[in-house]
């Protein structure tokens, strides 16, 4: 559970190599190439429907590319098996109902199950680790509250904490700030950045929140069917950042004027 994430500091953690992906014959990603090195914080920008979530789910290994390959830690993403515990994941919206009989701490502890191993009971060490992560996320006071009593932002922090508690080498985050208020969004990005540096993690985050992500991510990429650009954030020009917005406007234009059909 510790130590290994500091190895191979410059090795690629994620390699997306000539990847095509289609949903029911409708092309979502075409010839995508992307490399994320250890310790990078990559922000994925781009319009809604441009393929950000699909790309995250390909890296997660939940989806299998139609062509090309996705490697995570040098292995095919959809064949990670138990090594999947080295990848933390926070989905766009938690599908589980907050109605499950669990406290915030119970929920975070779930993140330790996979590395703990089959047949082993949760002990003091796992609960300590969960408490510490809740402290780092700035919500130690909610530890003993039932999930459903938490606000949307607090729940989202709990789910991030669950993804982080086993100290993954790669964290995949999909639109984490949906449903958070503006003040909450800003502190969320700051906390995540601090955690990423402390745990020396690689992070890939899909977001449309350009205002925050450009100050947090070390690299940015624009995804709209293809990877339009992929560069260190400080090198990006305003025009390139605008392009991510314009692509969004273009997509909306196509949807409005062509009966909602995809433009490919």
């Amino acid at each position, binding site marked *: 559970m510790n130590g290994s994430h500091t190895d191979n500091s410059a090795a690629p953690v994620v390699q997306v190599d000539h990847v095509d992906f289609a949903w029911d014959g409708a092309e979502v990603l075409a010839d995508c190439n992307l490399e994320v090195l250890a310790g990078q914080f990559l922000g994925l920008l781009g319009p809604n429907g441009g393929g950000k979530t699909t790309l995250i789910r390909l890296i997660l290994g939940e989806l299998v590319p139609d062509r090309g390959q996705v490697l995570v830690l040098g292995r095919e993403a959809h064949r990670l098996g138990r090594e999947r515990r080295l990848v933390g994941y926070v989905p766009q919206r938690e599908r589980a109902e907050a109605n499950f009989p669990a406290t915030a701490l119970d929920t975070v502890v779930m993140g330790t*199950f996979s590395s703990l191993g089959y047949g082993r009971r949760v002990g003091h060490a796992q609960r300590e680790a969960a408490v510490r992560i809740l402290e780092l996320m700035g919500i130690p006071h909610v530890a003993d509250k039932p999930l459903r009593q938490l606000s949307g932002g607090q729940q989202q922090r709990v789910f991030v904490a669950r993804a982080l508690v086993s100290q993954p080498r790669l964290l995949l985050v999909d639109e984490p700030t949906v449903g958070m208020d503006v003040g909450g969004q800003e502190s969320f990005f700051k906390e995540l950045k601090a955690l990423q540096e402390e745990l020396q993690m690689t992070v890939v985050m899909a977001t449309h929140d350009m205002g925050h992500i450009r100050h947090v991510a070390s690299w940015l990429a624009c995804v709209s069917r293809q990877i339009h650009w992929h560069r260190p954030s400080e090198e990006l020009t305003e025009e390139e950042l605008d392009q991510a917005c314009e692509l969004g406007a273009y997509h909306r234009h196509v949807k409005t004027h062509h009966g909602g059909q995809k433009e490919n």
Partner: protein
Amino acid sequence: MSQMEHTGFWQAVAEFAFMRQALAAAIIVGGLCSVLSVYVVLRRMAFIGNGISHAAFGGIALGLLLFGSDATSSLATSLVTAAFCLAVAVAIGLVSQHERLSPDSAIGIFFAFSMALGVFLVGLRKLYTADLMTYLFGSILAVTRDDLILMTALAALIMGFVALSYKELIYYSFDPHMAWASGLSATFFHYALLTMLALTIVASVKVVGVVLVSAFLVIPGATARLICVRFGTMMAVAVVFGILSAFLGLYTSHLWNVPTGATIVITQFLGFGVAWLVAAKRD
């Protein structure tokens, strides 16, 4: 129970082996079904529980057809029923993984097919229908020593698996997708739950019957969910509730000389009602 109308409950237990077997069966089934009911409620598997329990009817008819209905063939019939329920559970699992079908469609199809197959087989061989009535509504006094041994073995197997997989089953019940993403095998626990459900139904069907066993698989978990906010307490409350209601149901059915399975379900329903009122007042 007419011959025991004037006998007290504990006196009957002391005197008659079948009453002791009935008491043991009620407690085992009450406890086992309650453990499963926690997962059934949290994973919203009430309908699939219903589907598999009705599938047991097809399995029982097949077993009776193959081995006859005398006491010595009861174990063989149970084994055929177990195999049949497992096959239906796996079939439901496979068919419902198809993108275009929702699980409830798959359940509805196999549910009806299994019942139809049962009725068809009964008609084909002109089986003695009183045996089937026993399996439809349960007959706790007809529980044999062999039945009790099978029940105990199945209960030990299932409890052992639940104890070993306790934390994995929590995560799977909470969110199968995220359990998978964390490195646990969601497919394995999906089929493990279906298998446990099928085996629990086989162990319980003689006591409560095909029609009523689904209540055992929902009410204890639902009652506990109403009053508990953590998984561990929910499990404990469900098991205590299940065993207590099974005992009270058996006791009452002996007192009033009415069918046991139905009396236990009514007892559980009353308990659920009380929990609902308590929860409504508290929230």
